[in-house]
Structure formats: structure tokens, C-alpha cells
């Protein structure tokens, strides 16, 4: 054992400072209360402080930070979306992600791998082509590629899927597609927000929201009441609990989404491999584990249980693409809650209630949006005016018949 490590073990004070303070009680009043200490809520707190100088902010998290979707996703970041509104928004997020390790002074293991969405049919090849053209038009690096290109970049793949599935006939290739260490994103934003004076309260659950004459006046928590005129709900899979407190209706329905990791292997898979037909996405983490996710559970459920069905189907599809994985063991399996919208776009911004802001509808695609959502929501809260990038995503689109149909790009989770 190295001597330094031995010495360290006998020290009574561990040199590493805590990432953020643990305030022992809630203040009486905050300028802004953020419900949910996932990446989105913490990023909003960070940008409120950094961009707008608003620091009398509390982030209330019922469990520990990052315990929701933020710590459960398969960490894929990309911007090759189908609609202009979507592609522009997610590209702005990728731009922030690229500098984020430096900005937050924390290594997020942001790793650009190249993202392949495999097509197993001409119909899906046609959608890929459509996406590639929209992307190019907006200056996003995205192209349609053939089987030879795929085989060259990912020699281990079995393009015939062993005859169990229709063969892979092409792919949408998005070189900037990346993965990141998701919990570090939460910690980095938490530390940044805390250093600037925002308070992060773990273990505090919001139980009700006080609305008088159409305006927010405070929130009830299991640790007492706090006054505030501005509340951001950033609770993703728990949004339907919160919307009930203020009497809002929305199209959101909650489904579990499951993922798994295998035992660690030596690095062999650089790319991120997605197959829309097999409902599978696979990447290799910096620890060597294969991280894989599936499509949503088939019916609404507000529960994070995982199922054997999923592990079996998932393992089968991984072996369709990479037959040699047959001997590899699955280490862990888990589920997260996805708040699904009918058009696969988020719900963001102001609402009919004065001072109540929504950051929701993150479904299976919200991790990649963490930086830009925090940024745009902070702007919206500070100015009372929806940031340009999120204007198309307002809840009002469902009463104005003005959806942003992103289905083609997000029908497979990630």
C-alpha cells in the first residue's frame, strides 16, 4: 500500500472539502424556491446566481441530490433532433456541456464518442436521412452512413443481427454524440450554486404550494412553511404530484424506464450504439461497464421497480448486435421515472399561475438538456419572460394545438 494512502487512512480530518454546505434550517423567505435537486433544479439555481445575481434561493430535494432521473440515466448527450426547435435547443445544451468541466471546475468525464442510430429498414433509413438534412441545415454535425462505414468504426458489430432481426442497412451518424458522468453534473452545479450563496436542502419534501389570487405565495414542506413568490418545479417524473398542488392540468403521464450495466470489460466499444428497432442503446463507460437502456415500460406506473422481463429482452438485443456478449454478466439493473409528453418535447416556462414555473416533460431525453434548461429557466424566472429557446415548449401549446413533434427523434429512450 502506498505510504501516503496509509497516512491518509489514519487522519482524523479528511482533506477533501465537502461539495456544499448542509444548512440546518429553512429561512423564512426566499426569492426563489426550486423544487427538485436533480441536474435541472441545481443548474437553474447556479445560473440564477451566476447570470442574474439572485442568490436568496433554496433548492428543496426530498431525497439526496441526483437521486431521480439525473443519477439513473444512460448519460447520452446529443443534438441530432428532428425539429428545428428541438435541434436548436439541444445544440445550445451541447455547446454548454463542452465547456462545463472547466466552468464548474470538476471533471465530468465528458467524452465525445460518435453516436450511431442504426436503421434496420428502408423506412427508418428515410427518417434518419430527414434528421440528417434538418441537422445539416442548422449546422449540426450529422450524416447518413452505410453498412461499410459502420463496420469500419465498430468492427465488433454483427450487421446481420445473427438473422434474429432485420439486418442493419445504414445509420444516422452524429460525431459529437457524447456521454458524461451524470452525478458529477449534479454535484458540480450544486457546488457552484452553494459557493454563490444558494441553499441546498436535502431531505426536504414539498407537500403543498400556496396560491392566492392566481399567484404563488409560498410552499409547504415537511419541515415547515416558507414564503416565496417564485417557485420552479423541476421534478421531472414527479411533476404530476406537483401540478396537482396548484391545480394545473397537463398531458404528462409517468412510465418507468429501465437500464442495466454489465461487469467491466477492457475498452473495446468507443461509439454509442442505438437501435431504434431493437429499442436498445449501448455505450461503454469510463469504468469499462457496458451501460444499456431500453424503451419505456408498457404501461403507466409511478414506481422505480425493475423487472426480469426487461433484463431478458435487453440481454437478447445486446446479443443480436454483439453476439460475443453472451458470457458477460449483468451487474445491476434499475429504473427511473419518465414524465412523457405526447409530442416528445419538454414543457418549460411560465404557466397560468403567476410565479409558478415548470421545467418538465423530460421523459427519456432530459439529461442532455440539463445545462441549457437551467440556463433558460433562470432567465425566465429572473425576467418573467420565457427565454427564446424555450418559447415553443410552453404548456400553452396544448391548448393552442401547437405541438412540437419530436417523436421521430426520441421514440427510443435516451
Amino acid at each position, binding site marked *: 500500500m502506498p505510504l501516503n494512502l496509509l497516512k491518509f487512512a489514519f487522519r482524523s480530518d479528511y482533506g477533501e472539502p465537502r461539495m456544499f454546505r448542509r444548512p440546518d434550517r429553512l429561512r423564512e423567505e426566499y426569492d426563489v424556491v426550486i423544487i427538485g435537486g436533480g441536474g435541472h433544479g441545481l443548474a437553474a439555481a447556479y445560473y440564477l446566481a451566476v447570470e442574474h445575481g439572485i442568490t436568496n434561493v433554496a433548492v428543496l430535494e426530498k431525497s439526496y441530490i441526483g437521486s431521480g432521473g439525473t443519477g439513473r440515466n444512460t448519460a447520452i448527450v446529443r443534438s441530432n433532433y428532428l425539429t428545428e426547435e428541438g435541434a436548436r435547443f439541444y445544440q445550445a445544451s451541447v455547446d454548454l456541456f463542452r465547456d462545463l468541466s472547466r466552468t464548474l471546475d470538476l471533471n465530468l468525464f465528458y467524452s465525445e464518442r460518435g453516436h450511431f442510430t442504426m436503421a434496420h429498414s428502408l423506412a427508418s433509413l428515410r427518417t434518419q436521412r430527414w434528421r440528417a438534412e434538418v441537422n445539416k441545415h442548422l449546422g449540426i454535425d450529422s450524416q447518413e452512413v452505410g453498412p461499410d462505414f459502420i463496420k469500419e468504426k465498430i468492427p465488433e458489430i454483427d450487421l446481420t443481427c445473427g438473422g434474429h432481426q432485420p439486418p442493419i442497412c445504414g445509420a444516422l451518424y452524429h460525431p459529437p454524440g457524447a456521454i458524461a458522468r451524470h452525478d458529477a453534473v449534479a454535484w458540480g452545479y450544486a457546488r457552484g450554486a452553494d459557493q454563490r450563496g444558494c441553499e441546498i436542502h436535502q431531505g426536504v419534501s414539498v407537500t403543498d404550494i400556496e396560491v392566492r389570487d392566481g399567484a404563488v405565495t409560498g410552499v409547504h414542506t415537511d419541515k415547515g412553511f416558507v414564503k416565496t413568490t417564485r417557485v420552479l418545479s423541476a421534478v421531472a417524473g414527479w*411533476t*404530476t*404530484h406537483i*401540478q*396537482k398542488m396548484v391545480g394545473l*392540468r*397537463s*398531458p*404528462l*403521464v*409517468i412510465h418507468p424506464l429501465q437500464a442495466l450495466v454489465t461487469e467491466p470489460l477492457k475498452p473495446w466499444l468507443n461509439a454509442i450504439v442505438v437501435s431504434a428497432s431493437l429499442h436498445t442503446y449501448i455505450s461503454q463507460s469510463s469504468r469499462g461497464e457496458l451501460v444499456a437502456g431500453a424503451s419505456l415500460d*408498457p*404501461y*403507466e*406506473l*409511478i*414506481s422505480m*421497480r425493475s423487472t426480469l*422481463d426487461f433484463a431478458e429482452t435487453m440481454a437478447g438485443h445486446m446479443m443480436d448486435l454483439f453476439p460475443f456478449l453472451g458470457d458477460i454478466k449483468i451487474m445491476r439493473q434499475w429504473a427511473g421515472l419518465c*414524465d412523457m409528453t*405526447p409530442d416528445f418535447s419538454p414543457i418549460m416556462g411560465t404557466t397560468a399561475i403567476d410565479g409558478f414555473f415548470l421545467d418538465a416533460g423530460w421523459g427519456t431525453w432530459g439529461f442532455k438538456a440539463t445545462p441549457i434548461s437551467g440556463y433558460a429557466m433562470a432567465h425566465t424566472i429572473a425576467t418573467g419572460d420565457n427565454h427564446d429557446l424555450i418559447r415553443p415548449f410552453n404548456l400553452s401549446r*396544448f*391548448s*393552442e*394545438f401547437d405541438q412540437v413533434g419530436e417523436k421521430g427523434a426520441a421514440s427510443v429512450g435516451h
Partner: protein
Amino acid sequence: MKILTCPVNGPRPIQEFTYGGEVRDMPCPDTSTDTQWADYIFNRTGEPGVRREWWHHGPSGVWFVAERDIIGDNVLKTYLWSARETP
């Protein structure tokens, strides 16, 4: 294995069923306002609690109603649509 009880075929594995969303009453298209209509088309009761939902038994093609708690995933009862008014 999760079991769901089809009112016609009895208890069957959940894999034999397809979920059809919550049971909702359509407002009259002739008299409803745009707002009421949009609410019917888009909005859902995604909140926790017990809900009436459509389910379909694939092998036999039976559509029926289930009352299910969407947090605990417990099905309280299942019945055919025409029988819904009689408790």
C-alpha cells in the same frame, strides 16, 4: 410473473395484455369550446391514485376496464365496459 384478470378469460399473464390509457368521457364535439376540446385531446390524469383504464386482452380481442392504483400497481377490479355503472 404479473397476472391480470380478464373479465372474460380469467387470470392471464400481463404479457397477453395491452394498455389502452385512462377511461375518459368525450365532451360533445358540437357544443364543447376549443378549450374543453383541447383538454380532452391532450390532457391526462397522470397523478398518483386509483384510476379507471382501458386494457386489451390480445389473444381474445377483449377490451375491458381495470381500476388500478398507479403507484402500487395493484389492480382493484376489472370488468366489461357495459357493466361499469353497476358496482
